[in-house]
């Protein structure tokens, strides 16, 4: 974990509303493992004091990239960033995804910016399995070709049927799962909480492993403030675990879902 004044190298529209921001960050870049995130101080956002967390989409020794969607005051304020601008980042943060178990078939499941969070995992994974990507429309499904180039079998699902299966990601996943040797599956999931819960439930029912990258509001990002806690099961009940430090990735069996309807913290609409 480092704090670094990174420099914008590239910043432009990626797809739909998503934008890509590439940062020169020679201190942070080399440390990144798949599933980790950055805590970014948005420049000139002088009436907001908190950093914003973003999954690390790509990283190498020279720096990092993120994919983001302007959804609020902070992300909107990032739009004018230009090459050469300085951006203060802390990272890499969180423990990221574990390495694939022996004799497991890796399955990626993503929604929203989850695709970005899974790219490094997809790249690193020695085995290339199946990737289920969900979104509202075709426009919301990011990076399909990139995953295909890496050798993944990508199966999109869209609410409006504009790409792949019509429906939630589960509509594509469930029939596929029915034909698998389920115990050999190992899932890496990043998306809105309802998707995480749906996949976690399937993992528990069907006895496979599912690593869920949890999305909680954060203040410090380093484990100090106890904002981002989720309930983690213990032998005799539960304890709080910090998403930023103990997560964001947890195995499905660790998580005690609080509400019948998990709160979707992935914002989709703009508001101030």
């Amino acid at each position, binding site marked *: 974990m480092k704090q670094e004044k990174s420099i914008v190298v590239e910043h432009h529209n990626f797809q739909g509303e998503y934008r890509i921001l590439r940062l020169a960050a020679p201190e942070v870049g080399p440390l990144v493992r798949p599933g980790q995130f950055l805590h970014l101080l948005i420049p000139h956002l002088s009436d907001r*004091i908190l*950093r914003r967390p973003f999954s690390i989409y790509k990283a190498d020794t020279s720096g990092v990239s993120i994919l983001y969607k302007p959804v609020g005051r902070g992300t909107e304020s990032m739009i004018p960033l230009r090459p050469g601008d300085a951006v203060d980042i802390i990272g890499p943060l969180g423990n990221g995804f574990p390495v694939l178990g022996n004799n497991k078939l890796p399955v990626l499941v993503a929604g929203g910016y989850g695709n970005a969070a899974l790219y490094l995992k997809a790249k690193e994974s020695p085995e290339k399995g199946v990737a289920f990507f969900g979104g509202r429309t075709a426009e919301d499904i990011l990076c399909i070709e990139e995953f295909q180039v890496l050798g993944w079998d990508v199966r999109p699902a869209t609410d409006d049927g504009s790409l792949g299966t019509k429906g939630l990601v589960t509509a594509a996943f469930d029939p596929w799962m029915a034909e698998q040797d389920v115990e050999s599956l190992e899932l890496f999931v990043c998306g809105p909480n309802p998707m995480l819960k749906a996949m976690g439930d399937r993992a528990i029912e069907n006895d496979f492993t599912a690593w869920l990258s949890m999305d909680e509001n954060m203040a*410090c990002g380093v484990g100090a403030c106890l904002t981002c806690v989720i309930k983690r099961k213990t032998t005799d009940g539960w304890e709080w675990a910090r998403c930023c430090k103990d997560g964001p990735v947890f195995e499905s069996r660790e998580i005690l879902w609080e509400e019948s309807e998990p709160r979707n913290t992935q914002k989709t609409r703009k508001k101030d």
Partner: protein
Amino acid sequence: MSVDLSIKIGSMVMKNPVTVASGTFGYGPEYADLVDLNRLGAITVKGIGPEETLGNPTPRTFETRGGMLNAIGLPGPGAKGFIDKYLPFLSQYDVPVIVNIWGKSMEDYGKVVEMLDGEDTVSAYEINLSCPNVKEGGSAFGTDTDSFSRVIELVRGKTQKPIIPKLAPNVSDIGAFAKAAENCGADAISIMNSYPAMAINIDTLEPELANRTGGLSGPPIKPIAIKLVWDAFRATTLPIIGMGGIYEPEDAIEFMIAGATAVAVGTANFTDPSTAVRVIDGVERYLVAKGYDATSDLVGTVKA
């Protein structure tokens, strides 16, 4: 050219007047990768109660215009857990450790001091009498001079180490509490805790915090904190640890001119973990530029 940055709070010597505010810096290890802990005047840890506690449900924080609300609600490992999990780490550093303590009852305060007092690494106690986010104790002790005094007396009876009551800001006469702290044998006072506040989501009609209300911290409260420090400074001879919205060296200097012997960097750690070190360097530069010999020359020099 060289200036003496060190200050004393009772028997505790701080190599410079800058600590971190309780609850914004974890227990030490969390920021150790980013901040050279040995540079700090002291490390003040998150509030410790006698037992392990869970704190409040989530959401626990909310960003407001220019600041934030928190209702973390004092989760923590308890005194025993703190000793086991964090003291070994903290003892590696050459920095005094101020343990912020709290209790649901008066007795709790005594208990936690009893449990911690044998530990050499614990340098002082900051007594949280002003947490806006726990139902029992906390704030109630901080807004009534009688129970305020009784907690301090009780803690005083249990330890020789410096004790530093942390005052509630939501009182009409902070001077009365400063004086009460002095009379009860405190070694210093801390001002201020976050200010009781609230935000409501106008779409859902729900409070933005699960706890409904929380404490406002960060830049918005600085002018309030400066006045409280100045008021307390004129009411007591105790040293004051000033805090509330310190983001830049200039903010810390303003607190010191108002009467703070030391300062704490709080919410700013979230924005920029290098704040405390920047503040230390900036205070030193200012003292040198102004020709002061020691930090103490600046304290309370406001021409008012």
